[in-house]
């Protein structure tokens, strides 16, 4: 019992220490470092929320780009009329509602329909926005002029990350989190045990998607100019999935372990081998599926099992 307690205390200290460092970072580092950390925080919030849904339910969603894009467009439309805080909240609400609708339609069915549907959703929304912009507002792209600069984006994303992690932690320990785990283990058992599996899946999907919309809203000022092609760019959906899967989606802090190396790799690639990014993305996917099915977290757990002296879980 004592050992468990001190492990938790140490973890808490590490997290608090990390938070303090992250809070003062913009004041003590160069603009480049802050930009790098913005990318890391951005992808961390996206990958972690993606994993909170995909981990227990094993549903793969490629709709992240759709929700991020919605967030960006919310900012583009509202940034000059409302304070940024409200813009972000509105983006989150819109994302939540859309995801709820999509979820209700597709989460009752098997995995493949969901995957195709979520991918198609990004395409669909992009086309709809393009059509709307060309025919109705007669605008192709939009400029985002705002005082929301680099430090504000940084802190916005930091807060979003913290909220995501805290929610994920509380969720996991709540009865809701157990319902989610049960659904992942055996949905039939879940339903017959009194869990309204559809509702649980839909709400989780909607909540995690609203985080993505919020992230998109926060990041938009950084891009300064968006059009449907830029805002609804599929690639980010896939990048998030790879990062989460590389790190491991069975643990709350798993995706971060995938985000950091891949953000650095993508940085490197975009400057040196820009044309090869698709190929490398593809190879990484394949590598992860075949060699690291449970991600880095999975490897860590296997190693821990190897080194532990006795297992108290199982018949002797």
């Amino acid at each position, binding site marked *: 019992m004592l050992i468990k307690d001190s492990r938790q205390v140490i973890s808490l200290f590490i997290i608090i220490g990390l938070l303090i460092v992250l809070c003062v970072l913009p004041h003590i580092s160069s603009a480049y470092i802050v930009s790098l950390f913005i990318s890391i925080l951005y992808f961390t919030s996206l990958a972690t929320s993606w994993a909170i849904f995909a981990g227990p339910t094993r549903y793969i969603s490629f709709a992240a780009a759709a929700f991020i894009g919605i967030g960006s467009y919310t900012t583009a439309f509202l940034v000059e009329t409302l304070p940024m805080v409200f813009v972000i909240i509105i983006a989150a609400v819109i994302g939540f509602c859309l995801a709820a609708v999509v979820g209700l339609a597709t989460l009752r069915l098997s995995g493949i329909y969901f995957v195709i549907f979520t991918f198609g959703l990004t395409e669909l929304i992009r086309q709809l926005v393009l059509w709307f912009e060309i025919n109705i507002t007669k605008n192709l792209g939009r400029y985002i002029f705002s005082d929301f600069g680099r430090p504000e984006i940084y802190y916005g994303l930091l807060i979003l990350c913290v909220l995501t992690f805290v929610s994920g932690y509380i969720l996991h320990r709540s009865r809701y989190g*157990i319902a989610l*785990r049960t659904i992942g283990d055996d949905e039939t058992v879940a339903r*017959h*045990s*009194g869990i309204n599996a559809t509702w649980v899946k839909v709400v989780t999907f909607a909540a995690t998607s609203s985080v993505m919309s919020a992230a998109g809203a926060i990041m938009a000022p950084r891009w300064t100019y968006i059009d449907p092609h830029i805002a609804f760019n599929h690639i980010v959906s896939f990048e998030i999935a790879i990062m989460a899967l590389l790190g491991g989606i069975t643990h709350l802090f798993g995706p971060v372990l995938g985000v950091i190396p891949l953000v650095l790799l993508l940085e490197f690639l975009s400057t040196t081998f820009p044309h090869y990014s698709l190929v490398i993305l593809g190879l990484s996917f394949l590598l992860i599926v075949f060699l690291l099915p449970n991600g880095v977290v999975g490897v860590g757990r296997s190693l821990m099992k190897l080194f532990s002296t006795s297992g*108290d*879980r199982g018949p002797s």
Partner: protein
Amino acid sequence: MNETTLLQVSGLKKAFGGLVAVNDIDFHIEAGEVLGVIGPNGSGKSTLLNLITGETKKDTGAVKLNGNDISAMQPHQICRNKISRTFQLVRVLPTMTVEENVMVGLLFGSERKNFNECRDEIARLLSTVDLGEKSGFLASQLTYIDKKRLELARALANQPILLLLDEWLAGLNPSELEESINLVKRLQESGITLVIVEHVMHAIRSLCDRVFVMNLGQKIVEGTPDYVLSHADVVSAYLGDESE
């Protein structure tokens, strides 16, 4: 149909494409009894259970629990109406411990307990099925019969008034079978109404007050175990396939 009728099934029908799995079935279950359902493979027994628990949607017919039609309800609502079941191919939650498996039944079942209220109840349920010493084990590492017991414990966590056992006694050796039959008897004595779908005729004889036989989706014979098991139609439906 009288005041002690717990479940009334009338005109229940379900077809999958061209195959009629359950064909216009009528029967009732008295409160407190043990009803056996037997029949050759493919006779529609599992589909019948699935229709009652809402896993499969009926084509026509009614299923009334204490007078209320539950035939359109989803499985989680059926559960909350205090009907539990076990599955033909045993289903436990593999990444969770024995304790957690039972807790799921308590948290989301008809009683909807809180975390703190669970501990004693879990211990009681596990001792009922004789799994008390293995509460920390991972469900995936249990033996076959222990998994069956765990499934039963989870079903019992729901405080069911009606318990459907789908071939729960299959695959057991003689001593395990006797133990399990005694366990089912104790469940009946504690007031639970039971429906057992079985191929093990010895169990049917020992446990059931009434039995009905299904063949090709229809009810062909109904009565006491002795009557049913020596009936010519039943014997021919099985083609002499009585497993003891």
